């Protein structure tokens, strides 16, 4: 049972959950707090993607971009790759991570599922 992982990612997880609990407690509307978190994620993601792609040639198409997200980006953030990438070939991509890093210490089942944002 290897649960320890890298110490610096423990600190990241704790910081990440402080941000979430702060945003959720200062905003009583759940969809508003989710969009606030998304806006923060956007800025963080943008900077990281710039770092990660600075020595790579331009992506040819959507699929290449998605592959970058599933491999390099996911690896940088979660130290693993996305397990499965599916598409309907009309611009919709579904990324499946069977062991999402931020959840491994929280739940392996349905407990707490009511706190997850709902899919519209």
């Amino acid at each position, binding site marked *: *049972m290897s649960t320890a992982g890298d110490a610096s990612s423990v600190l990241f997880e*704790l910081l990440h*959950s402080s941000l*979430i609990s702060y945003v959720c407690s200062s905003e009583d509307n759940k969809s508003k707090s989710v969009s606030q978190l998304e806006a923060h994620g956007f800025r963080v993601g943008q900077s990281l993607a710039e770092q990660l792609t600075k020595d790579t040639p331009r992506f040819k198409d959507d699929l290449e971009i998605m592959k970058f997200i599933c491999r390099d980006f996911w690896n940088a953030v979660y130290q693993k790759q996305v397990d499965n990438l599916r598409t309907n070939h009309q611009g919709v991509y579904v990324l499946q991570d069977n062991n999402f890093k931020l959840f491994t210490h*929280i*739940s*392996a*089942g349905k407990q707490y599922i009511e706190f997850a944002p709902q899919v519209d």
Partner: protein
Amino acid sequence: MTVFLLHIYDRNGNSLYEKEWCRRKKSNLTKEEEKKLMFGMLHSIKSFVSKLSPKDSKEGFLSYTTSQYKLHFYESPTRLKFVVMTDINVGNIRETLKKIYSSIYVAYIARNPMCDLAEPINCKLFESRLETFMKGLSFFEDSKE
């Protein structure tokens, strides 16, 4: 050999978690009284042991044995208290108790933002990991008598 039960207390003596796997005799106390008395007893033994000890011992009080059962005690550096009761044939299981702290409590409670550290533990993942861990112990025996 058999594991009877496990208790976890926080630093102020509040019971965070308890699990009984096998219990042959009920005391005539309420659950609350029993937990309080156990904590009070542990607290007293712990401080008495350290007062008697000729030098500042790192480990302090480890276990005691009666004719019927053995109580094992481990206190984390953050003063969480882990108590496991087994039958008297079980040896020193200090490493096992440490492991309950370091790879189960820390991983699924301390690192779990959904769990309030001051509240009794109510986390399914913690419980199932603990259950798997305990049942995998060589001295665990799920006896249903």
